[in-house]
């Protein structure tokens, strides 16, 4: 039925082709030329997007970092002034140190914890799915919402949960968010907590991928489970470990949501002790309206992340 009507309409189509130059052009192409036309039809809009929304802004950020601009007046060329100012700014170095503290504390703690959990969870059958879900659930939460929950936990007696617990066992109070030394780890904790489930899942997938025959061979040889862990499991997990190290490092270097929301009364405080680079960028650009200076800070962030990614590529290639 359909076919018959198709045949009936065919001559009219032919007419349209003959009249329409573009269609005639298309039908005269070879198969591989048609593929090129189709490829560009698929890619035209996305290429425009990547140029306008990704590459142009990146270039713009670099250009802006050599300029002085308060958003209202004219943009003026400033050479390396912004970078020199950054180098001489004690707040920047404080922030730089904080950013690396998040990385240095966050990455090893979260990796060791998630590996230990994954290693043992892999050997547990009873309620396996439920336990896995319990660990994974925090990953599905909103960082802002949970930052407020943790902020409440950290309040002094009689409000905060942690200090209430301490008080009920007769321990003395801990200043969490109001102390310059405790605030940074306190802000970091919910970030580690939220990411742990993801890392456990990825580690377990990595553990599953190790062939059972390796373990059987080790058992026949009577090797202790500790040796198996260090000689078989961890070396074979190297790709997984490298992926997670880089993934979580980048995450901790870009920490923002938790810090901003747990210290809204004094973002990055007390005394800049929790302020990470991204918060400094946000402050400089959208509270200080110092666009050029903020752009220079983003270039520093970009460079740090680039170095971390390059180290990853290097390690993976050496495998």
């Amino acid at each position, binding site marked *: 039925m359909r076919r018959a009507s198709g045949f009936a309409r065919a001559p009219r189509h032919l007419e349209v082709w003959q009249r329409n130059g573009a269609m005639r052009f298309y039908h005269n192409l070879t198969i*591989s030329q*048609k593929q*090129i036309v*189709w*490829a*560009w039809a*698929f890619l035209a*809009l*996305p290429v425009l*997007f990547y140029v306008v*929304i990704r590459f142009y*802004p*990146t270039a*713009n*950020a670099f250009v802006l970092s050599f300029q002085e601009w308060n958003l209202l007046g004219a943009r003026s060329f400033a050479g390396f002034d912004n970078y020199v100012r950054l180098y001489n700014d004690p707040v920047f170095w404080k922030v730089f140190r904080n950013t690396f503290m998040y990385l240095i504390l966050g990455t090893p703690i979260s990796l060791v914890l998630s590996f230990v*959990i994954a290693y*043992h969870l892999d050997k*547990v*059958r*009873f*309620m396996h*799915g*439920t*336990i*896995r*879900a*319990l*660990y*994974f*659930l*925090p990953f*599905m939460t*909103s*960082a*802002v*919402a*949970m930052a*407020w*929950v*943790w902020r*409440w936990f950290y309040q002094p007696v*009689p409000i905060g*949960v942690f200090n209430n617990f301490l008080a*009920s066992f007769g321990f003395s109070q801990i200043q969490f968010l109001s102390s310059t030394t405790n605030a940074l780890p306190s802000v970091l904790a919910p970030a580690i*907590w939220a990411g742990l489930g993801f890392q456990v*899942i*990825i580690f377990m*997938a990595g553990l599953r991928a190790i062939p059972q025959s390796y373990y059987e061979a080790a058992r026949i040889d009577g090797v202790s489970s500790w040796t198996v862990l260090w000689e078989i499991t961890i070396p074979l997990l190297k790709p997984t470990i490298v992926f997670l190290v880089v993934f979580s490092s*980048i995450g901790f270097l*870009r920490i*923002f949501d938790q810090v*901003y929301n747990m210290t809204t009364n004094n973002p990055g405080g007390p005394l800049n002790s929790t302020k990470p680079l*991204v918060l400094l*960028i*946000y402050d400089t*650009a959208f509270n200080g309206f110092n666009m050029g200076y903020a*752009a220079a800070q*983003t270039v520093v962030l970009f460079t740090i*992340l*680039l170095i971390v990614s390059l180290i990853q590529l290097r390690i993976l290639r050496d495998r």
Partner: protein
Amino acid sequence: MAAQDVAIKASSDTLFSGSSRASRRNMGQFIRWALLFSGGVLMVMPIVFMLSTSLKFPFEVYNLNLIPEEPTIENYTYVLEDGRFYHWFWNSLIVATLTTISAVFFDALVGYALCKFRFPGRYLIFIAILSTLMIPTEMLVIPWYLMSKSFGWLDTYWGIMFPGIMTAFGTFLMKQFFETVPDDFLEAARIDGLNEFQIWWQVAMPLVRPALAALAIFVFLGNWTAFIWPLIVTNSADMYTLPVGLSSFGDEVDVAWELIMTGAAISTLPTLVVFLVFQRFIIRGVVMAGLKG
């Protein structure tokens, strides 16, 4: 089934073999299970505390009991009557949904084109898109803001969404999955007279459905919880998304923790419920996206 296995194994080991080594191993296995389980319970405590406090009257907030003595939904009615949370919820839902549809569509489109078409510049475009993974969002927010300002995109849905309507990560992921679609299928469709767009949409797309779903979950979760860009691009409280709204709300009510917990619960419950419903599927998707991406 698993529970029975453990029980049977445990009893047979202790009863019949009688060796202390076997019972020690069972003891070890039990301790391992107990520690893991307690750790898991500890992990969800913040969420449990959030929910329980959101159901408490102010006078009970400072008690550590998990089940409120007098449960109430008054906090929810109070927070929702205010009207703003409706707005924010709706904004988040629209923004996250539209962005997800767009990103999944375009990432699959680009991933397919880069995987299945042979054309000059293919490798260059692939590398160019992949290289944008190296550029952190935080570097782009300032230029995006300037752009939005000059085009009048500040304080609009489009302004919140435009940076995320395509993702390099998703493109890469989809390209990987289209590699698994045999070219013969596409060739057969070509002979049947389908055009290239139809081949992609009707033949290739259904074959990578699990990957599409995994990508959709990732993009939706990312946009639902996104904070820094919506914070920058929105000015009026009407246009806030849930995280931005919650952040300003928390500041405003200051010490009314039961209200803050209610707001937090409203903004994070939807994704938790989605997870509990599609648990297995989501975990598989996360592994797939994490390992291939």
